[in-house]
């Protein structure tokens, strides 16, 4: 298995290299003036300044020079200050948000993380539970209901669902407002008396002993979490159900029954561990799904995470900002995929012991 994990890890730099090439390739569609903002920390003031920057970062040089400068940036020989260089975490300057993209990520990503962390648990466990129940009750009413739920779930686009729940639970009932936190609390949060331990508001509010803030934060997050989760529920349900149905037809399940085990033990001790193997892989993909899903969900709910920011920047054709975000999430995904693959190797003895 060690070779398997090493091979998997060696793939990471390869994929990351590919991702940078792909994004750099897309950048080539922009004219140099636009690309200049990759390397600077504030808005350029004059044409001459832009010209100087183009020369400085080799944007008139051959493409491999450009790529290299894009990766490592440029060190000023006099001040010894590095500017640009995505490898050093400098993703350029966001024109529409008037701040460096890296800072933007630092500010917005905790909000997105807060949201996805709350969503991911329910997504995985509820989906798997539903799928197993549906498979065990194959073709019975529960199974039919689960199937209908799953089809409707996958047919309700996030932006429609989000707007519908917003109409119902906010506009009509007034229960769950959009946004991040109520105005009365946002001042407290930015003040000195509120310590940011994790930057995840839901946790920090508890750590500061402000249960009222926690409640308010959760009130704002209920609808986004629900919106983010339900499509994944449907997917998990479907994959778990079909994997479980397949497993239940295996001969070793008949063996288990022939041993006189109760149906409960047959399902939970013999069938489920096998049925979970393909679901593990799905868990990796669902992280991709969630991070993609935040773009629309956050936009619908005016939730200040990286998704909503990316969408707003894209609508204003601020490519650099979206690029930074994409590179960043791409990195997260590469890492989480590796984790899932290694996890899979541990769960399946056939892989673990080879």
């Amino acid at each position, binding site marked *: 298995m060690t*070779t398997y994990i*090493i*091979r998997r890890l*060696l793939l990471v730099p390869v994929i990351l290299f590919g991702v940078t090439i792909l994004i750099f390739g897309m950048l080539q569609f922009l004219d140099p003036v636009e690309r200049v903002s990759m390397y600077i920390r504030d808005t350029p003031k004059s044409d001459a300044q832009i010209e100087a920057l183009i020369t400085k970062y080799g944007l008139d040089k051959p493409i491999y020079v450009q790529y290299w400068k894009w990766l490592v940036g440029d060190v000023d020989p006099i001040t010894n200050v590095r500017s640009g260089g995505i490898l050093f975490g400098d993703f350029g300057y966001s024109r529409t948000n008037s701040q460096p993209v890296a800072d933007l990520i630092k500010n917005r990503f905790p909000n997105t993380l807060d949201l996805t962390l709350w969503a991911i648990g329910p997504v995985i466990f509820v989906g798997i539970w539903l799928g197993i129940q549906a498979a065990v009750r194959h073709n019975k009413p529960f199974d039919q209901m689960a199937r209908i739920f799953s089809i409707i779930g996958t047919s309700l686009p996030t932006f429609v669902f989000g707007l519908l729940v917003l109409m119902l639970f906010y506009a009509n009932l007034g229960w769950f407002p959009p946004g991040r936190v109520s105005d009365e609390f946002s001042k407290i949060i930015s003040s000195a008396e509120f310590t940011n331990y994790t930057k995840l508001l839901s946790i920090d509010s508890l750590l500061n002993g402000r249960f009222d803030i926690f409640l308010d934060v959760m009130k704002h997050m209920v609808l986004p979490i629900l919106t983010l989760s339900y499509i994944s529920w449907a997917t998990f349900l479907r994959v778990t159900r079909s994997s479980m149905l397949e497993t239940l037809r295996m001969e070793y399940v008949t063996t288990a029954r022939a041993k006189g085990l109760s149906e409960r033990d047959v399902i939970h001790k013999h069938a489920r561990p096998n049925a979970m193997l393909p679901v593990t892989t799905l868990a990796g993909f669902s992280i991709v799904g969630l991070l993609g899903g935040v773009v629309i969900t956050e936009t619908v709910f005016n939730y200040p995470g990286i998704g909503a920011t990316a969408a707003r920047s894209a609508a204003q054709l601020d490519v650099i900002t979206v690029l930074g975000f994409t590179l960043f999430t791409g990195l997260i995904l590469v890492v989480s995929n590796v984790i899932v693959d290694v996890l899979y190797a541990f769960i399946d003895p056939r892989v673990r012991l080879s």
Partner: protein
Amino acid sequence: MTSNNDTLLKVDDLTMHFPIYRGVFQRQVGAVRAVDGVSFEVKRGETLGLVGESGCGKSTTGRTILQLYKPTAGSVTFDGQDLVKMKGEELRIMRRKMQMIFQDPYASLNPRMTVEELVGEPLIVHNVVPPKEVSEHVKHLLETVNLNPAFASRYPHEFSGGQRQRIGIARALALQPSFIVCDEPISALDVSIQAQVVNLLEELQDQFNLTYLFIAHDLSMVRHISDRVAVMYLGVIVELTGRDELYNKPLHPYTQALLSAVPIPDPVADAQRQRTILEGDVPSPANPPSGCRFRTRCPIAEARCAEARPEFREVEPGHFVACFFAERFLK
């Protein structure tokens, strides 16, 4: 082994190793020695049975002879020409003379082609009959294998296993080959169907003067159909001789054990015979034992068996054995 005009096929030291790649950089760390130095010849008009357990390399031997795999070493002389040296078009044209019948009648027929297209394809790709006459030819071929020619426009899935195998046989016959490799042609069929196909193969052999290499794991069926039989174990032939000679006077301990393991559909005879039960499993062909391949399971193995590989030698006229102690069983 000397060959003369009677010899249609001569296989000399045929070797087929499939590389194994392992490790972080997928370097070749070894090879599955599926076929490891196999020599035999097949005379015109005879049936040579090739028998052995699963994984012994018998199917690979058949496929390598037909150059479906490029052999690692060795030569295959067919009708005086070395097939291993042939390439591309030359080999393609040569295929007219040698055909194959497959084990699985469900997998070996393209599901998207009709019986007529399947059986007619060899005629078309080799341009042996004018396109207009293909259909007529196919009908004739179907009759030859006892299939109703009215079904020529149907698809394989409309037929039962035995009927599909007949379609496969008709396709193999289309180019009027002189040599057919039968790769376990009956082992996927129901018991009551097996005899139908075997009888048909025998009839066709008489009718068209065919030469068969009949590959099987079923010793009783091989005995029934073959003139001579070769026994394979772990990539090598351990014994080769005439069918009666082999079954009456097996000289290799593996052949003896194999024969005694075959169930006989007769409780009285079954109770009377002597059994040799082999211990353990067949070793992996990726890591075969040193010296004699069979020594790990052999009841009479001695120290020298681990040191050198016993030569495949002619103990009696026409009786080849690869065992140091073959003479012990010569009564």
